[in-house]
């Protein structure tokens, strides 16, 4: 199987967008830190915080997932690479990039926190700390915090990447009419019909149930446990990988 080549190309294809993304993200963060972070006394004495830059990475990976099928599929079909090699290569590429970005983001969080002076106007807080920081309030657990932070962001990244990949493969397989129907129907159902039905028929019970389920799925029902979120995101990754494969395995070249 052309698996190595599939991974090699897909990693290569992601290299440039990744470099641009991190260049912009880190430069803008550093500029903010340099402009405001080192000043204790200022005319405008507003305290602020840089929070959850990992969200940008998550959005980047979701969008990258959305744009990573058509061109690569056509190129691979042109060059005798099977759909199986393409798809397995995608899974490995997503895992590698997600792990790399999780490491970078966690290290960057530590770096930004380290360079910001204590008591300064600006403080840095990672997404993981925002969500699950309370878990470490009573104990000093630097390694565990880093480990869990890396693991959580990795699972979030792979999950979101595969959701993006699934959407793009789904749209690739659909006919024009179906695309329009889904593009209008799904948001209309989720954001208009469902809230209306919930409000008028269930008296908000559905919304509360969904909220409770999400709190459970992401480990907030009893305290803050990131392992619930990790399992949830891995399940999302597995389900959307399975669905994507069903779409990829019979995908054909469209001219």
């Amino acid at each position, binding site marked *: *199987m*052309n698996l190595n*080549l599939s991974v*090699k*190309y897909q990693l290569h294809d992601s290299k440039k967008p990744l470099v641009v993304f991190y260049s912009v993200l880190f430069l803008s963060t550093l500029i903010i830190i340099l402009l405001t972070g080192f000043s204790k006394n200022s005319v405008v004495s507003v305290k602020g915080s840089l929070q959850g830059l990992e969200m940008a990475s998550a959005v980047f990976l979701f969008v990258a997932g959305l744009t990573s099928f058509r*061109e690569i599929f*056509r*190129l691979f*079909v*042109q*060059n*005798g*690479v*099977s*759909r*199986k*090699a393409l798809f397995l290569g995608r899974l490995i590429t997503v895992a590698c990039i997600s792990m790399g970005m999780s490491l970078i983001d966690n290290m960057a969080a530590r770096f930004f926190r380290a360079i910001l002076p204590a008591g300064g106007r600006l403080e840095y807080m990672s997404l993981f700390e925002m969500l699950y920081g309370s878990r470490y309030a009573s104990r000093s657990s630097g390694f565990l915090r880093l480990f869990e932070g890396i693991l959580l962001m990795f699972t979030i990244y792979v999950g979101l990447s595969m959701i993006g990949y699934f959407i793009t493969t789904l749209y690739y397989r659909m006919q024009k009419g179906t695309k329009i129907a889904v593009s209008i129907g799904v948001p209309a159902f989720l954001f208009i019909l469902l809230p209306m039905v919930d409000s008028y028929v269930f008296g908000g019970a559905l919304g509360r149930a969904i909220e409770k389920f999400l709190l459970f799925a992401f480990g907030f029902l009893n305290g803050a446990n990131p392992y619930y979120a990790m399992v949830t995101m891995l399940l999302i990754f597995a389900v959307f990988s399975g669905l994507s494969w069903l779409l990829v395995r*019979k995908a*054909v*070249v469209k*001219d």
Partner: protein
Amino acid sequence: MNGLCVTNVTKNFGDVRALKNVSVEFQPNKIYGLLGRNGAGKTTLLNVITGRIFADSGKVTLNGEEVPENDKVLRNIFMMCEKSKYPDTMKVSDAMRWTREFYPGFDGEKAMALAERFQLNVKKKIKSLSTGYSSIFKLILALCVNVPYVFLDEPVLGLDANHRDLFYKTLLESYADNPATYVISTHLIEEISGIVEDVIIIRDGEIIRKETRESLLSHYYCVTGSASAVEGFITDKKVIGMDTLGGLKSAYIEGAPDRGVIPDGLEITQMDLQRLFIQLTNSKGA
């Protein structure tokens, strides 16, 4: 079984049956001409063979191994198609570099030499190439991949006469240096007539002829003369088509001419491939 075999392949697009139970075999190291009218099923057949689309039934094998989704086998097949499958932002030189990765036998030096010969700027992005140079770019890849089976779908699209001539010469050079099976699907039948060894004619999704060019042409002849003389001559013959130009009539006849009984005023000639193709694909009964 040696060679690339298409067995009982059927492909439908909605209500349209693009391929009807097609069976055809491509033997190693031969140049084939795949001929058919627009919409006859040529590209569909090539797309099925190369795994770009899936057949509804039937199978495609190379030396006994199934082709679709088989990386090991697919490495032996390359198809140049009308529309580019390369990313828009990719440069010609990058496409050559990646082709070498996908096809280890790709001859990069030859590709650069051909780019110079065809005056193709390898620093250009693929999307910025004109139709002709886009064809040249794809042809260069096809001629340098060094795989046993190369399928060329409308290879000379947008090429001027000089470049077409250069392509045919380069193809024959490549074939002489490194024999492979080339399948050329084109509408410019006269131009490939002298190149192809075997001819496959497809009509309405069915293979109606597959034999060597010489054998195919030997089964037909043309008789030309005054309308009355031709009409008299063809009464007991199997006519596949006729043309009339002024007072002259030409009849295309299946079979071998009996030169001993040709009436005065009639001229017997061998049919050329294009003329034969037109008659075979015009006449439903052929």
